[in-house]
């Protein structure tokens, strides 16, 4: 039981053929949006866009939590890293995100203590081993990841590990979907929904997409066949005029999701308004530590912050909304490359621009 069967080339070929046939019934070109950085990566890695018929356009929305993290958050993380007796622990994804003055990676060079961990529990262990220091974990990620930070907080509380703090940059998924579905500038006909966020929040969380906005949506996993089954289903829904929300990842996603995980998050976090880079402020789209856990909140540590600098010419926001493809940003591939990233869309290997640069730059086909 691993994902090899789900990547079977014969099945992929068959699904492509079925999509092409179903797409013949479409009245016009349609745009599908995925909202998960891991989907962006998986789609690019298999070259799926190149296999779809020309009138089925697949674009990436604001699904990369690193890309939508505001510059101010990274600035604060850097400032914390340079505080005396402070260790900042982070997922690798954040290390090269550009801030106003550099990046977390660059801060290491200036003497800041920043450590990449695989799990928030590893950061908790660092806290246990460094009792004279404050350990700040950078909590970024959507609903898949927030429960793991909440779990670490629960362990910290139970074990009275007082030097473990979290700087929350968590974001939650349904709110931006509402914004995108309702925005007339964003011409998206249907959504591919993030499979592992859905493991946590459950299939029922998305019914509003069809019911309130008339958009079909499919919850899918991350293998090529999972994604293509989703594309096939959405094309069929659009061809039939049938707005539905369908769970195509039933082996992992239930209607109600992971109740225990959500309860753990609820214990420590409350819904808050959050700034999404490129989309602006979205109500109830973030997670903030509850006031009774302010002793765990790294936000209360006073640090000097620079004026946040949004790089001029950067069009990450429009890329995130799917209104433009990366090559339409004047900085793409020239001033802004993975080696010298200006916007977060290029820094994260999941970011639309980075994935495009690595996989699609040479395709030379509009919408490819």
């Amino acid at each position: 039981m691993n994902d090899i069967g789900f990547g079977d080339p014969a099945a992929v070929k068959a699904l492509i053929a079925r999509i092409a046939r179903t797409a013949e019934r479409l009245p016009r070109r349609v745009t599908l949006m995925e909202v998960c950085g891991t989907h962006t990566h998986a789609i690019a890695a298999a070259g799926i866009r190149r296999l779809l018929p020309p009138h089925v356009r697949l674009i990436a929305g604001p699904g990369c939590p690193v890309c939508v993290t505001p510059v101010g958050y990274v600035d604060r993380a850097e400032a914390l890293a340079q505080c005396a007796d402070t260790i900042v622990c982070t997922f690798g994804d954040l290390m090269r995100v550009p801030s106003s003055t550099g990046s977390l990676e660059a801060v290491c060079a200036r003497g800041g203590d920043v450590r990449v961990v695989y799990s928030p529990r590893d950061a908790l262990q660092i806290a246990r081993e460094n009792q004279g220091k404050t350990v700040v974990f950078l909590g970024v990620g959507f609903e898949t990841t927030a429960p793991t930070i909440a779990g670490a907080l629960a362990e910290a509380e139970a074990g009275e590990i007082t030097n473990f703090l979290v700087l929350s940059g968590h974001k939650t998924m349904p709110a931006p979907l509402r914004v995108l579905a309702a925005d007339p500038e964003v011409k998206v006909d249907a959504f591919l929904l993030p499979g592992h966020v859905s493991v946590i929040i459950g299939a029922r969380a998305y019914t509003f997409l069809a019911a309130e906005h008339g958009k079909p949506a499919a919850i899918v996993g991350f293998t090529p066949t999972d994604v293509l089954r989703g594309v096939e289903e959405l094309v069929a829904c659009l061809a039939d005029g049938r707005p539905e929300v369908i769970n195509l990842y039933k082996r992992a996603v239930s209607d109600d999701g992971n109740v225990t995980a959500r309860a753990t998050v609820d214990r420590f976090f409350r819904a808050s308004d959050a700034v999404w880079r490129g989309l602006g402020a979205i109500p109830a789209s973030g997670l903030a530590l509850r006031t009774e856990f302010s002793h765990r909140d790294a936000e209360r540590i006073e640090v000097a912050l620079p004026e946040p600098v949004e790089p001029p010419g950067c069009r990450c926001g429009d890329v995130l909304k799917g209104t433009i493809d990366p090559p339409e940003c004047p900085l793409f591939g020239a001033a802004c490359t993975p080696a010298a990233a200006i916007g977060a869309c290029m820094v994260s290997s999941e970011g639309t621009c980075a994935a495009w640069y690595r996989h699609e730059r040479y395709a030379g086909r509009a919408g490819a």
Partner: protein
Amino acid sequence: MCLAVPMKLVERDEFGGVVELDGVRREISLMLQPDARLGDYVLVHAGYVIGIVDEAEAHATLELLRQIADAEAAG
């Protein structure tokens, strides 16, 4: 934003356990999925089990894919 890998739960105690895939093992926390049982295939993300894979559904999907591939090959 969802790198999670299906791995088999091979050891557990009250709060945590060990998962394994192809001989690679890691200690994980079961705090978010306390009802996972030994032998279950579980989704592992950032050192936690976040969900249990429904094997019957998995096999059903694989079977569906097989049928799709066969039907297409038969033309």
